[in-house]
């Protein structure tokens, strides 16, 4: 029942509210009027009967005084005029019945005993005791009894009038409310109609018509605004969908394998190129662990990469090997980026794998070529070097100044060339993974001093300072560390075009020694610093474009230092010089 009322149309609700309100008000009014009338009627009847009582009593006094009950009866008979007087009687001063009305009424129906004077309602009757007084002398008492028919008939008359009025008022209220409710319900119904059209037809370009500035008007405005928003959002969704389908097409058509995975390493997408390169289909791989394509000896690579990514580092062009479905290995270069949600939380990683098999083969061929060329060059150079040294000794004996000068210069150039060839050979070995360390214990101070002297000999515009590190003995590949220092010093000279001071500093910290090469040269910008130790990387800068080189020096430096379980670091600001440093283990002091 309650549910039915809730579910009825708003028009019915409004009409119901109006009608219920009207009914309650009308019923209350009629009720109040009836109650008022009831009491007022009672009072009127009381007054009427009392008046009648006073008249009859007054007229009866002589009859009582002169003992003429016949006359008294006759006087009482006058009450016939009022049909509602059902009984009356006169009593003398002793309470003895003197006369009665109607004459044939049984004395049982009359009071046996007189009660106090006055008029009162007893059940369905009004009963009165009126003293009969003649000139202040009481002659007896009149008893009078009236029914309340007149009151009841009047009340029921009023009740039926009230009912009739209520009903006709309700009919009028119904007709009026039927018309008036439309002022409230019509705009709501219109709005509902528009909402239905919109929701059924999915046409969000429709707008509801605002007809008033009340709450329904603002509801209409809000509804229209929502439609506008939906329209805009739909457009945005469409654009996004288009963009993402474009993106998907790009991903699918990419030559590189593009794989996405959860932070836990579960694969969530696998493009066509991934299928082609690694042999697994998307169905096979989505939901699988990324470890499936990582060779057993490189399984620890994954957590390290993730660690680097989580710390905010980018992983770009990370060359490694991956396992194909046929269990062969594939050379790939990986670029891995975190995938973030709108709040910036990492929800996964995207991995772009480029097939670098060909590149690797190319490099191998190049390395082989370099190794062969270097080796072939080294042999004649060694014999040239020994002849020149022999000739230099002879010239010194003969004190032939020009020859000494010329042969010394030739020896320097040969040393340079030897170093260069040594670098190429090291590079080739490094690439092949064939670089071996030949470690020995030696004192650092004289070793550095020797190198400084050699380099200073070539650098006439620059002053090399060397701070003392006497007594420090290290275990390292003496030749290769020598190459490192020679490289760093010659770089310092090369990139300090105006001359100036170069410092080689030596500091001991606990059981380590930090060797730093400090210059006052052009410096290196932040961007270049990152790539400085990459193979064949050369700083492109107007200031240093005249500086020659292959871009392998710092690569070798970093690799040699790395083979000594250390890391080459650089601190530099542009135009303010650079500091390169690395740490080595101290054997003893």
């Amino acid at each position, binding site marked *: 029942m309650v549910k039915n009322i809730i579910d009825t149309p708003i028009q019915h609700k409004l009409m119901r509210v109006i009608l219920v309100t009207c009914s309650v008000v009308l019923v209350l009014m009629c009720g109040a009027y009836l109650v008022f009338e009831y009491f007022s009627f009672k009072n009127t009847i009381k007054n009427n009967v009392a008046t009648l009582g006073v008249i009859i009593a007054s007229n009866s006094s002589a009859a*009582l005084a*002169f*003992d003429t009950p016949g006359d008294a009866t006759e006087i009482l008979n006058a009450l016939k005029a009022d049909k509602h007087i059902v009984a009356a009687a006169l009593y003398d*001063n002793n309470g003895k019945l003197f006369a009665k009305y109607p004459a044939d009424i049984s004395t049982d129906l009359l009071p046996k005993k007189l009660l106090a004077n006055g008029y009162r309602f007893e059940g369905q009757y009004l009963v009165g005791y009126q003293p009969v007084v*003649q000139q202040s002398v009481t002659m007896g008492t009149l008893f009078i009894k009236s029914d309340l028919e007149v009151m009841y008939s009047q009340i029921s008359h009023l009740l039926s009038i009230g009912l009739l009025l209520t009903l006709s008022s309700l009919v009028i209220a119904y007709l009026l409310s039927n018309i008036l409710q439309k002022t409230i319900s019509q705009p709501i119904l219109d709005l509902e109609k528009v909402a239905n059209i919109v929701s059924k037809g999915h046409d969000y370009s429709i707008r509801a018509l605002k007809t008033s500035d009340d709450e329904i008007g603002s509801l209409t405005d809000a509804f229209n605004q929502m439609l506008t928003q939906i329209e805009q959002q739909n457009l945005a969704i469409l654009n996004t969908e288009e963009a993402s389908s474009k993106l998907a097409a790009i991903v699918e058509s990419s030559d590189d394998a593009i794989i996405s995975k959860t932070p836990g390493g579960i694969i969530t997408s696998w493009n066509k190129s991934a299928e082609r390169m690694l042999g697994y289909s998307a169905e096979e791989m989505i939901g699988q662990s990324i470890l499936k394509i990582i060779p057993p000896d490189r399984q620890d690579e994954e957590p390290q990469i993730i660690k680097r990514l989580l710390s905010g580092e980018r992983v770009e062009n990370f060359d490694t090997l991956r396992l194909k479905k046929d269990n062969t290995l594939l050379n790939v270069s990986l670029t891995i980026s975190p995938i973030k949600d709108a709040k910036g939380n990492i929800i996964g990683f995207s991995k772009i794998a480029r097939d670098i098999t060909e590149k690797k083969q190319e490099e191998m061929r190049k390395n082989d070529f370099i190794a062969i060329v270097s080796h072939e060059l080294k042999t004649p150079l060694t014999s040239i070097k020994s002849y020149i040294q022999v000739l230099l000794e002879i010239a010194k004996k003969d004190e032939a100044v020009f020859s000494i000068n010329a042969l010394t210069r030739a020896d320097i150039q040969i040393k340079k060339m030897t170093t260069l060839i040594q670098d190429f050979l090291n590079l080739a070995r490094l690439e092949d993974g064939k670089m071996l360390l030949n470690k020995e214990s030696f004192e650092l101070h004289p070793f550095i001093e020797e190198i400084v002297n050699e380099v200073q000999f070539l650098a006439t515009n620059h002053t090399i300072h060397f701070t003392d590190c006497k007594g420090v003995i290290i275990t390292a590949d003496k030749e290769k560390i020598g190459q490192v220092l020679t490289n760093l010093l010659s770089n310092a000279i090369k990139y300090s075009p105006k001359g100036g001071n170069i410092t080689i500093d030596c500091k001991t910290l606990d059981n380590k020694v930090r060797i730093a090469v400090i210059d006052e040269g052009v410096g290196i910008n932040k961007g270049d610093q990152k790539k400085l130790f990459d193979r064949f990387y050369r700083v492109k800068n107007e200031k240093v474009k005249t500086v020659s080189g292959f871009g392998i020096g710092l690569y070798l430096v970093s690799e040699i230092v790395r083979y000594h379980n250390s890391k080459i670091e650089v601190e530099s600001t542009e135009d303010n010089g650079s500091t390169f440093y690395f740490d080595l283990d101290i054997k003893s002091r």
Partner: protein
Amino acid sequence: MAKRIFKAGNILTGSRLFVGMFAFAMLFNIQQIRAQNKPALEYQVKAAFLYNFTRFVSWPSSAFNSSTAPFVIGIVGRDPFGSYLEDVIDQEKVDEHPIVVQRYRDVKDINNCQILYIPAGDDDKIKEVISAVAHQNVLTVSDADKFVNWGGVISFFKEDNKLRVQINIAAAKAAGVEISSKLLKISKIR
């Protein structure tokens, strides 16, 4: 309870008379009834009627010497009431006039009175009294049958063993007393 309650009882015969008498006697305060002076029941009723007339008849103020002058009920000749009438009117007043009873031996003794009771007897004597008090605001009352015919105002008579009243309206008018219509209504009018 009012001190005086007067209502005429039936004048009955035989054993019923006794019962009626007894009932009538009960109307009065026993203390005020002096047994030795109690007249016949008929006269007790008449005494009550005499008193009741004071309530249904009005006298002009000229009938009294002053506003507090006594209201006199006179009895001329033989007195049938004894002291009973005094008992009835004891302490009673008509307006501010205290009611007193005066007895006159003869016509010439009649003084200023408002009600004059003349017992039945010598008809000539009665007629003499009537003419003596005419135009003097006196309500004349008698038991004589033809009293009203002779010009008296009120006479008692018996009907069905009950005491009734007959009134001569012309005589009342001549006497200058006004009789209530209520009394007239229950009376026999000549």
